C-alpha cells in the first residue's frame, strides 16, 4: 500500500485498527474492551508470571506433541493412500468425514476415554490437524508425474527408495501446504481442548480471567496466542515458497 508516495510496510493497517481499539477502549463503551495500551501493559506484567509461563509451556507441549504426531501419521498415510488404490478406497471416506466433522463434539467422548488431562488435549490437537495433512499428501502423490515413478523403477529403485526419493519430494509442496493448514487447525484444537477441559494451560488461565472479569488479562493472552499462530503459519508459508520453484514444474 502507498500513502502520499511512501511505501508502507505490510500490515500497517493493523496500526489503524489498534488506534480504533484504543479509542473505543478510552470511551468506556463496555467493560469487555479495555484500551489497547492497557492490554499491552497487562501483557508485559503477566508475561513472566509463573501462571503464564506454566500455561504457555503446557500449551506448547500439547501443541508440539499433537502436531508432530499428526505429521508423522498424516504424511505417510496420505502418501500410501495416493499410491495404493485399495487403501484409498478404504480410508478416503473416513478422512473426508473427519475433515468436515465438528470435532469439538468428540471432546466429551475423548475426555471419558483419556481423562481430563494433557493426553486428551494432545489427542484433540492431533485430530484437528491430521486429516488435512493426509488429504494434501495424498493429493500431492496423485498428481505425481508417472514417468518419474517409471524412471525410478527402471533404474532399480527399491520401494523404500521410491518412497523417500520420489514420492515424498514430488508431493512436498502439497505436503507443506497441508502441514501449514494442519498446524493452524492444531492451534484451534489445542485451545478448544484446553477451554473445554479447562484445568490445563490457557484453559485454566481463561477460566480464571473471565470468572474475575479481568478483560485486560484475557485480551493479552489472546494476543499472544494469535501472534504465535500467525508466526508459525508464516514460517510454514515461507518453507512452502522455498519449494515453490519446482511445484509448478513437476
Amino acid at each position, binding site marked *: 500500500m502507498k500513502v502520499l508516495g511512501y511505501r508502507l510496510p505490510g500490515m500497517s493497517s493493523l496500526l489503524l485498527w489498534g488506534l480504533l481499539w484504543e479509542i473505543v477502549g478510552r470511551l468506556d463503551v463496555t467493560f469487555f474492551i479495555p484500551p489497547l495500551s492497557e492490554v499491552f501493559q497487562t501483557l508485559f506484567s503477566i508475561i513472566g508470571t509463573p501462571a503464564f509461563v506454566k500455561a504457555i509451556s503446557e500449551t506448547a507441549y500439547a501443541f508440539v506433541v499433537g502436531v508432530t504426531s499428526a505429521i508423522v501419521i498424516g504424511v505417510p498415510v496420505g502418501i500410501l493412500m495416493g499410491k495404493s488404490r485399495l487403501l484409498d478406497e478404504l480410508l478416503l471416506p473416513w478422512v473426508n468425514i473427519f475433515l468436515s466433522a465438528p470435532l469439538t463434539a468428540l471432546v466429551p467422548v475423548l475426555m471419558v476415554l483419556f481423562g481430563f488431562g494433557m493426553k486428551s488435549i494432545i489427542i484433540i490437537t492431533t485430530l484437528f490437524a491430521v486429516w488435512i495433512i493426509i488429504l494434501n499428501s495424498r493429493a500431492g502423490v496423485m498428481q505425481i*508425474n508417472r*514417468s*518419474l515413478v*517409471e*524412471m*525410478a*523403477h*527402471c*533404474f*532399480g*529403485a527399491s520401494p523404500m*527408495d521410491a518412497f523417500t*526419493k*520420489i514420492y515424498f*519430494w514430488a508431493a*512436498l509442496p502439497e505436503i507443506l501446504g497441508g502441514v501449514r493448514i494442519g498446524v493452524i487447525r492444531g492451534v484451534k484444537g489445542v485451545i478448544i481442548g484446553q477451554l473445554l477441559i479447562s484445568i490445563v494451560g490457557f484453559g485454566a488461565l481463561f477460566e480464571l480471567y473471565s470468572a474475575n472479569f479481568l478483560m485486560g488479562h484475557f485480551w493479552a493472552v489472546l494476543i499472544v496466542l494469535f501472534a504465535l499462530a500467525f508466526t508459525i503459519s508464516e514460517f510454514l508459508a515461507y518453507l512452502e515458497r522455498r*519449494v515453490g*520453484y*519446482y511445484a509448478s*514444474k*513437476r
Partner: protein
Amino acid sequence: MRDDEHDVEYAVSVRDVSKNYGDVEALKDLSLDFPRGQLTSILGPSGCGKTTLLKIIAGLLSPTSGEVEVNGKTVTGPGPDRAFVFQDFALLPWASVIRNVAFGLELRGVAKSERESIAQKYIKNVGLSGFENSFPHELSGGMRQRVGLARALSVDAQVLLMDEPFSAVDEQTRRKFQEDLLSLVQQESKTFIFVTHSIEEAVFVSDQIAILLPRPSRVSEIIKPTGIRNKGTDNIRRDPEYLDIVDRIWASLRSYVE
C-alpha cells in the same frame, strides 16, 4: 566401423509378444531381434504400440503373452543391463543436473564422490559442462534431454532404450541430437533401441528400421539402410539412397495416416 556380416548376434530378442490393455490389443504376436552394438529404430504412426513395446523390453510392463530375452536371459523386470531415456525427460525437478545424472548410480548404492565423478564425465560428454549445479527448470528442452541421456549413459547399461527422445525439442536441436547420436553409437559399444515417428530421423540414425503398423500391431517390414551408414553426417541427407528409403517407407505408411 560397424559391419553387419560379422557378429550377427542379438542383444535383445522379442518373441511372439502380445499385450492387451483391457479390450485394446496394443501388440499382437510381435517378434523382433536387435543386433548387438547397433541402433534399431522402431518406426510407426502414433498409437501403434511403440512405447508399449519399449516398456515391455525395459521390464516396466509385462507382456500378456510371449517373452523378451536380453543377452539370452528372459526379462522379468527392469535390470542394470538396460537404461531408459524418456520422451518427457523424467528428471527430478528438485535435484541439480549432477544429482539427476548420478541418480541411477545413487539408486545402485554407488558412493557419492564416485558417482559424481562418473556423472561429471558424462555431463561433459553430452556437452553440459558448467551446468552441473543448475536445475532442470533452468535448462532448455534440448539440454534437459541431454541430462536424461547422460543419466542413461552413466549407469553403463549394454542396452539403451530411447522413447522418442527428441520429439520434445526444437528442430535445430533435434538435428544436432541426431548427429550426436550417430557418433555415440560409433563410440559406445552399446545396443540402441530407438523409438520414433519421424521417417527421416529413423533413416538418418538407424542400422536397422523396424516398421510397426497398427491394427493389429505387427512388424510389417525391416529395412537396413546399410549403404548410407558410412557416408558421414554431412552427406547422408542428400544421398539418393537416403531419399529412396524415406520415400519407400512413406509409401508403406501413408495408408495408415488419416
